[in-house]
């Protein structure tokens, strides 16, 4: 028993290899179980505390203000999870309103680590949505030089398409105006037509008080979109949202926009609303809207194609751009939201 043999040597080395393998596997299993347990606990806490609701709400506001005619499903389902490092991953669908129906347009993905500096929000739209070219609004005058841009720029193909398509069709379109109008004035201007106003670009002091960048030609000057959508807010019973802008809810939409801007400025860091939400020059814009009031220079509207065609004769409208065409879905004075 106590003498040394080759068999004993082999046995010891074999047992050593087996034990080492099992020990490594045991450590790996332990690490996996620890990871799984920790993930389950953090996810449970995350799901129970609704800590992601704030980010969802503010990201929806940012979309309302910077992405024309991009709607979210109010209170609708959104995917949320948290990584072991407490990075919140949230995603939800966005829709475009054409007529009175919403059509799937893409996904919003939010990645919110503990440090806001590394947070980001991505809007992935279906390629055919062509959001950037479709919703470009031209200022009626150059804020620096005062030069007026009143060439109508009526793209004949827009009116031609609207003229030729069947009347049982609805569409959305955007246009700019030849002068600044208050939202109330624009609503009144469009009142004779059976349309819904979904979004209005707002002038908030661009190129005068701050320089957000611009693009243009001899007859156009565009700045990054920032505008008024149907109001969105929170109250005791939950959230509310107006899908479109109407005479009766216009004041509420304006007030809720100012209130939300103020909340963001007071409660969140600059990194949060600029780097994360992409809301640049928010303090400057808020000051301008507070002091100068709301001035719009265009709109996104939707309705039956033949109603849209009538806008051809409105002398304040310039640079129209046609969006999507869909089969008939329209009822007069349908209120969504």
């Amino acid at each position, binding site marked *: *028993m*106590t003498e*040394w043999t080759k068999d*004993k*040597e082999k*046995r*010891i*080395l074999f*047992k*050593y290899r087996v*034990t*080492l393998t099992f*020990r490594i596997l045991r450590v790996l299993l332990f690490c996996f179980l620890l990871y799984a347990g920790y993930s389950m606990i953090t996810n449970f806490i995350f799901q129970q505390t609704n800590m992601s609701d704030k980010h969802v709400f503010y990201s929806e506001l940012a979309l309302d203000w910077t992405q024309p005619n991009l709607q979210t499903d109010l209170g609708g389902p959104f995917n949320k999870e948290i990584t072991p490092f407490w990075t919140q991953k949230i995603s939800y669908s966005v829709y475009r309103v054409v007529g009175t129906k919403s059509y799937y347009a893409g996904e919003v993905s939010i990645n919110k680590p503990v440090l806001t500096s590394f947070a980001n929000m991505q809007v992935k739209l279906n390629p055919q949505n062509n959001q950037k070219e479709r919703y470009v609004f031209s200022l009626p005058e150059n804020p620096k030089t005062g030069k007026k841009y009143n060439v109508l720029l009526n793209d004949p193909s827009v009116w031609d398409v609207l003229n030729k398509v069947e009347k049982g069709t609805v569409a959305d379109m955007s246009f700019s105006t030849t002068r600044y109008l208050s939202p109330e004035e624009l609503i009144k201007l469009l009142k004779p037509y059976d349309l819904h106003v979904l979004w209005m670009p707002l002038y908030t002091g661009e190129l005068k008080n701050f320089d957000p960048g611009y693009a243009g030609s001899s007859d156009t000057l565009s700045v990054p979109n920032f505008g008024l959508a149907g109001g969105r807010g929170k109250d005791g019973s939950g959230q509310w949202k107006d899908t479109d802008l109407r005479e009766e809810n216009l004041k509420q939409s304006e007030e809720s926009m100012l209130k939300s801007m103020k909340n963001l400025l007071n409660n969140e860091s600059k990194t949060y609303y600029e780097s994360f939400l992409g809301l640049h020059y928010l303090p400057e814009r808020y000051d301008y809207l507070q002091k100068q009031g709301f001035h719009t220079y265009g709109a996104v509207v939707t309705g039956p194609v033949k109603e849209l065609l009538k806008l051809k004769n409105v002398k304040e409208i310039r640079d129209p751009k046609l969006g999507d065409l869909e089969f008939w879905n329209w009822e007069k004075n349908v209120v969504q939201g």
Partner: protein
Amino acid sequence: VERNLDELYRHFAKPLYFYLLKLSGSPHLAEDLTQETFVRATIALSVQHHENIRAWLLKTARNAYLDEWRKRERRKWIPFAESLLNRREMISPYGLPEDEAIKAENQKDVEQLLSYLPEIYRSTIYLREIEGLSYSEIQKALDLTEGQVKVTLHRAKKKLAHLVENKGWRDEND
């Protein structure tokens, strides 16, 4: 690396086994503790280099033996655990009771008397006299200073001589 380790372990398996056999008194346990020494060495060798591998492996083996003893001591408090898990007897770090050494008629081998010494004496004498380690190697293997090694070795020999004397093995000429 794996091949080198295999060669290394093949080379040291025998001296480690006999050292652990001397410490534990059980051939089966010595086998188990030798492979445990290699497992520990593989994990530790990947992160550090050791100049004196022999001394370091002996130190790892000794720690494996002491840990096994502590584990068994803890299990004593669990009902039936000892009978289920610790079937193989082992010599404690304190050594076997001296009275037994005196009563044991059939033990004529001085080397076997080592089992009756505390572990530190047993290790020091074994590593010095049987394995032929230098003082500095024993220092590394047992985590002692050079002075402590010398003192321990002296005391161990004295204790062993005392046992030999008590058993009446000493010649009158000695």
